[in-house]
Structure formats: structure tokens, C-alpha cells
């Protein structure tokens, strides 16, 4: 039942996103330029005397649009080869760019009773406006011990609408806790009220289904100080004893971080983070002699390059 609800939640976001893009792309993008269908009022006056009330179409302005010419006028002056090369470069330059970014949303030390540790959550991507290759990684560990959790996701991202991006690929767990491999699919984006959301489903090679939902909100206190509440929920459709995960809501992480964003791309922060394993997951942890969670003071930096 929980799984059904989870799936419904996950699928709702891209569906809502795609709902918008469903209107898109007439076969000829300039079909709309043909204004022959536009009504042309008979009024002779060219302008609307009422400012702000919109403008009327001009008299008899209903001639059909000409067929677009497919020759470059400049070819006959400068040569077709030189112009073809220049036009390709010009088109690429105006909208065809590609970028890359390395970003750490979390890169922090965690001070907690008994065992201080560290935590990271970041991504690197390369691509254009619509299609991107994304590498994500997150994990945590204790100083002096092994890395507890480490994940790397290799995803293809495709922009669905103004705010949402579909991401699909694989996730590989690398640390002591789990070395499982998963197929991954999710959506990432900005919900109304500026909520940053990332929700994904993971299907392991053993057939286990997991999910994660991350959300964050930036509350600007001053131009330079930003308070960020953050939440991460891990869910599972079934018990996975090998990786000590129990069915249902397996883990919750809540954080509150205050960052100093004088420099946009390098913002140190201080905060508090609380995490908790729940239900069967907590039972597994206790059985292995691990803790079930706790509170940490955190200090780190949010940065991109």
C-alpha cells in the first residue's frame, strides 16, 4: 500500500510536468506566423485611442505570409561555402551553448556525541538547456572509520518543462553498508513556493524497490544570510536484509542550515542535522549494533565551480 502511494507521488510530478509540454511543437514552428486566420476589423483607424486597451489589427492586413526563402542572400556576395560555415557558427552561438558545473549542496563535518563524521551531497553535470549528463554523489562516514554510505548516480537528464527535469540512469552503492546496483529514475526541479524537490525510484539488481525524496527551501534573511530547512526521506517497498533496510519509511533526515552567501558560489554554513532510522530499519541497525540516529551540529560549505 505504501508502495502504491509512493509510486503515485513520484509519477505525479513528471506527469504534471509533461502535461504542460503536451501542448508543444507544431510541425512547422512558424505556422503561427501565418496570420491569415487573424481577424481584421474594418475600422480604418490604425491605432487604438484607448491607451492600454490593446491594439487592433490594421485594415485589410490579411495578406498571406510569403513562403520562406531557403537561400542565403549573402551567398552571392561572399560565397556559399564561407556563408554556410559562418551561419552554422552563428546559429550554434545563439542558443546552442553547453555548460558544466560541479556543485556541492552539502560538504560538511558533523559533530555528534561519540562519533564525529562527515557528509556530502553534490553533483557534476555537463550539457545544454535540454539534455544533460549528470553525476550525483552522496554519502557519509565517521572520522577514523570506514565510509558508512556512498552512492554514485550516473544519469541522463532531460528538461521536461520550465521547472522540472527527468533523470534516469544507474545508481551504484560503494560503501560498507551496501554495494548494490540500481536502475534509477526521478524528477528534479522547483515546485511552487520555490520548493526544491528531488524524488527518485531505485530498482536494485535483486529486484528491490527503494525511493528517496529530498526537499529544501531557501529562506533569505538578509541579502547574504540564507536559512535552509532541508528534508530527506528514504522509503522501501520491502525488507532488504543485506543492506539493513526495512519496508516502509526507512530513514528520515531533517536539517536546518544557516549559510553566509556573500559569494554566491562559495557559501559557508553552520547548522543542525537530525536523522533517524525507523521501523524495521531501526531493528536491523540495532541488531548490527549500529545506532538508529541522532543529532549533529554541522559546519560546511555549499559551493559550485
Amino acid at each position, binding site marked *: 500500500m505504501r508502495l502504491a502511494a509512493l509510486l503515485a507521488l513520484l509519477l505525479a510530478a513528471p506527469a504534471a510536468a509533461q502535461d504542460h509540454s503536451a501542448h508543444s511543437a507544431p510541425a512547422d514552428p512558424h505556422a503561427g506566423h501565418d496570420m491569415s486566420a487573424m481577424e481584421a476589423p474594418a475600422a480604418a483607424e490604425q491605432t487604438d485611442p484607448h491607451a492600454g486597451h490593446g491594439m487592433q489589427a490594421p485594415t485589410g*492586413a490579411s495578406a498571406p505570409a510569403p513562403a520562406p526563402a531557403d537561400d542565403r542572400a549573402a551567398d552571392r556576395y561572399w560565397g556559399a561555402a564561407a556563408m554556410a560555415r559562418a551561419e552554422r557558427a552563428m546559429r550554434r552561438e545563439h542558443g546552442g551553448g553547453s555548460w558544466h558545473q560541479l556543485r556541492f549542496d552539502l560538504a560538511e563535518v558533523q559533530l555528534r556525541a561519540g562519533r564525529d563524521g562527515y557528509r556530502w551531497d553534490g553533483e557534476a553535470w555537463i550539457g545544454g538547456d535540454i539534455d544533460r549528463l549528470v553525476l550525483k554523489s552522496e554519502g557519509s562516514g565517521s572520522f577514523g572509520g570506514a565510509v558508512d554510505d556512498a552512492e554514485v548516480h550516473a544519469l541522463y537528464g532531460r528538461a521536461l518543462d520550465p521547472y522540472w527535469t527527468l533523470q534516469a540512469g544507474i545508481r551504484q552503492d560503494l560503501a560498507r553498508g551496501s554495494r548494490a546496483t540500481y536502475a534509477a529514475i526521478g524528477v528534479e526541479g522547483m515546485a511552487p513556493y520555490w520548493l526544491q524537490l528531488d524524488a527518485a525510484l531505485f530498482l536494485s539488481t535483486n529486484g528491490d524497490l527503494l525511493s528517496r525524496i529530498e526537499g529544501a527551501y531557501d529562506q533569505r534573511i538578509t541579502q547574504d544570510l540564507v536559512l535552509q530547512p532541508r528534508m530527506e526521506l528514504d522509503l522501501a517497498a520491502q525488507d532488504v536484509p543485506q543492506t539493513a533496510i526495512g519496508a516502509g519509511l526507512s530513514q528520515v533526515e531533517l536539517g536546518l542550515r544557516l549559510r553566509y552567501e556573500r559569494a554566491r558560489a562559495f557559501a559557508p554554513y553552520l547548522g543542525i542535522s537530525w536523522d533517524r532510522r525507523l521501523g524495521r530499519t531501526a531493528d536491523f541497525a540495532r541488531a548490527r549494533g549500529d545506532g538508529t540516529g541522532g543529532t549533529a551540529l554541522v559546519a560546511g560549505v555549499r559551493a559550485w565551480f
Partner: protein
Amino acid sequence: MRKMIDRRGVLGSAVLAGGAAALTRWTPAWAQTASPGLAAAPALSGDDITLRVAHQLLTVDGRSSHAIGINGTVPAPLIRLREGQRARLHIVNDLDEETSVHWHGLLLPFQMDGVPGISFPGIPARSRFTYEFPVVQSGTYWYHSHSGLQEQLGHYGPIVIDPAGPDAIGYDREHVIVLSDHSPLHPHQIFRKLKLQPGMFNRRRQTLAGLLDGQDQPLNDRLEWGRMRMDPTDIADVTGATYTYLVNGHGPKDNWTALFRPGERVRLRIVNASAMTIFNLRIPGLPLSVVQADGQNVRPVTVDELQITVAETYDLIVTPTEDRAYSLVAESIDRSGMARATLAPRAGMTAEVPPLRRRPLTTMKDMAMDMAGMDHGAMDHGSMRMRDGANAPQVRLGPGVQTIAPMPVDRTGEPGQGLDAVGHRVLTYRDLVALERNPDTRPPERALEIHLTGNMERYMWSFDGVKLNEVKQPIAFRAGERVRVTLVNDTMMSHPIHLHGHFFELVTGHGDHAPRKHTVNVLPGSKVSWDVTATPGDWAFHCHMLYHMHAGMMQVVRVRPTEDAAA
């Protein structure tokens, strides 16, 4: 009292004075820190003019940074032509990259228009190119690179074309005032930052501290705007956080000074050569008589302030009678900084510089969702949703289109964002009336609507939702046909839209005396119509916000003889 200047005499003495006057290293003589005016400064003129494009340093307010200039100066030299002459402009490209020069506002054969990939192949690194065209107009214009982002680096300069006959505008002295924006960041860095974090340069956001202090929007409005994922402080993409605003290559502290004698009619030829900055310009204490817009004479109209969008020019007459200094201030539209100069009888004088006024906020009207003043029944047309394809069937509704204006209105009677309640006269487009009858007064045969679209969150900009790199078909015109083009701004920012090689007549209710422009600012959530007579050739058509154009907000206009179009 007022004497018409003999232009030939002026040019002659200018050439003689040139050697002595051109001492300042980074700025041309007409833009020296204290300038007596164009009559005493050399301009490049004559039938053959050579422009050398090269890297250089630019010092602004005492700080040096890299620039691309022409003949060693930023702004580039003033080019002074005469209507009726044939101009030959020899470009020497000393860069290790391609360059180009576009003659902004000049009517010329399209293959001399200077847009690589549309009008010619560009000027390769370390090579030369000669532009040659007849000069068929007069007025104030400018020139700039159309290659990469060189314009942001300093590759821009003014053009003054003297009329063949007597000048309809009488003046005793003239100054060129080139406004621009300069950053120590390389323009590719600026663009990348905008792509990675679109609010990068906005340091005037609404904050919790502001809310508690009673500033900006009340809580309900903030929630409503948050629900729509719209930031009302998003007025300018690139701001004073990185820009220094320049007058003739001088920062506010450099205090460029234009000299005058009290009682003179002083003509100020204002050019906004910024990459990204719309300015609100005023000279506290002096009324501004607007006599020319985009190089075309208009019936004089007196205002106290005007908004000049990117790539526009305005000629103003001021008549300072007192023996005192005046500050010329040009605030950026988001009020994050200002360009400042001084008008003074003697060098070294200063006047009070007014502080930056409070930054404006975007309104529901900018979202084309203002219900006040709507026609009765207007509500029945289309939906008021923020992104309803039914309101713009021609727009491709992809990730690059954040909003579709549900109810765009004609705002040409408004003074521009943030200037509706400044307590004095502000110019609007409706105030502009052509001095001469329009050369083509035929009614349009055809109507064409083009939507200005974008997504601030992904920093994508386009026409009709299609970036130039994705465009399959150019916009087609028949040679000589009269077309009414309506630009609908679906975004929440102003866009200065420029059509190369043409003047268009704004439809603002002035019949056969419509103001003729090469660039028009389309306010957020508004629409603007203009009539144009198509000139044969291929022409660039784009938003003159440099990074909007670079992001794809550009198209090619193909004008062909009728028989070709029919074939």
C-alpha cells in the same frame, strides 16, 4: 544669440586640434575627462576611415581591466559622416579571433550590415575587411561588434551623420554621451554564471528582514508570487553587483565633464551602448528637450527624465543658463548603480549627485495579469492562467517558456518600469512624433505577431519559444511589402528589440508622423506594434540584451522579391 555652426569649419578645426587634444590614453578625444564638445575634438571622418580592433587595457575609476577597443580607445572613436557621401570603412582585426562591425541604425545594403553568418562571413583573426556603402540618412547612431560577446568588452562607438542640408536642430555646442556597462568579469563568465545561477547578480532580493521591516511586498503578495515562482525583484539580469556604469568610458568617480557656456543650446547625443543595462537618465535642474530618437528627428518634447533602453539613441537639447555645474545621472533600471557625468562651465566643477532611488518591484501588470482597466468582456477571451498555450498558439511551449502573457496590453503610453510615480515628467513612446511625414504611409497589407519568450530559471530566451539554434525557418517578408508587426512580451523583463537595416513606424496614434525607430523597448507583459516596409536582403532581428541574444533570442528576417517568394 544662437548661431548655426558651420560643420565644415568645425571638422577642419577638429582635425587641426586633434593631435594636441588626444592625450588621454584610454578614451578618444571627444570623450576626454573634460570635453569642450565635439567641435574641438577630432572625429574620424572623410571617405576612408580605418578602424583597428585590438585588445587593450581600460581604466575605470582608477582600476584597470581587459578590454577590446578600436584605435586604442573605449568607447571606439566617433565616426562623423555626412549624408550623401560614400563611406569606406577599413577594419583591421588585430585580435586572434573573428570580429565584425555592425552599423547600428544605418540603412545600407544587407551585405554591409556586419552580422557574421547573416550578412557576411565575419572578419577572421588578423585580417582586414572594407565596408563600403552610401550614407543615405543623418542623425546619431552607433557601431559595435556582432561577434561573440565582444561588445561587452568595449567594442562599441558612436556615429554622427550630419545632414546634407541645414540641420533641423539648432544648437551652439554638442556632446556625445555614450552610456555603457563594464565588468571586470569576462563576458563568458557572466553568461556562464547566469546559466548556472540565474539570480547570480541580484543582490536586492526580498528578505525576511525586509518583511519584518515593512519593506517591499506584504506577506500575502510574497506568498502569491512564490506560488507562481516569480521573483518581483528580478528587474535586471546583470547588475551593479558586477557592473560599473560608464559615460564615455568613464566611471562615476572619473566624473566625465561636458563643458558649456551659460545660455548656450547644448545638444547631447545620448547612445546606450550597454550590453544589458536600461538607464533612467536625468539632469536635475535642467529640462530635457527631446529632439531626436534613434537618429530620426522628432517634434521637440520637454521632459525631466527618460528611460533609454539598450541600443537606443536620443538627442536632447538642454539650455543651462546659470554659471553652475549640473549632474547627469543615468540610473540602471534596477537602481543598483548609476552612470554619472557633469555639465559645467569649467573643468573641475561638480554638482550634487542625487542618491540612487529605491529599486522598483515587478507588478501584476508586468505579468500581463492586471485586471484594472480591462475592457468589459476582456475576461471572456482566453484564460488568465500564466502559461496557457491557447493564449499564444504559435509559441512552442517547451522548457524555455515560463509564462505566456494572458492579457498583454499596449504600454507605449507608460514611462517604463519604476518611473510611473517619480513626481516629474518622464518620456513615453507616445510622446514621440516624427518631425517629417513618414516616407511610406501605406497601410499594412499583412500582420505578423511575434512572442518574446523566456525562462528565467533556466536562463533561456527566444522568439515564439524557439531559440535561434533550433529555428527551422527564418521570418519571411516580401520586398517592399508593408507589414504590421506586433511584439508580445510574455516575460517579466523588458526586451529591446532591434531589426537590422530598417526603420519601423511605431503604432502609437500619430498617423503619418509615427516615430521611426530601429530599436523598441517592449515592457514586460505588454505588446508593441509597428509598421515596416521590407528592404531586400537577410537581416538580423534580435533582443539587444546581449546575453538574451546569446541565449537564442534572435531570428533572421529574409526579404525577397515577390516573384522569388512565389516560386
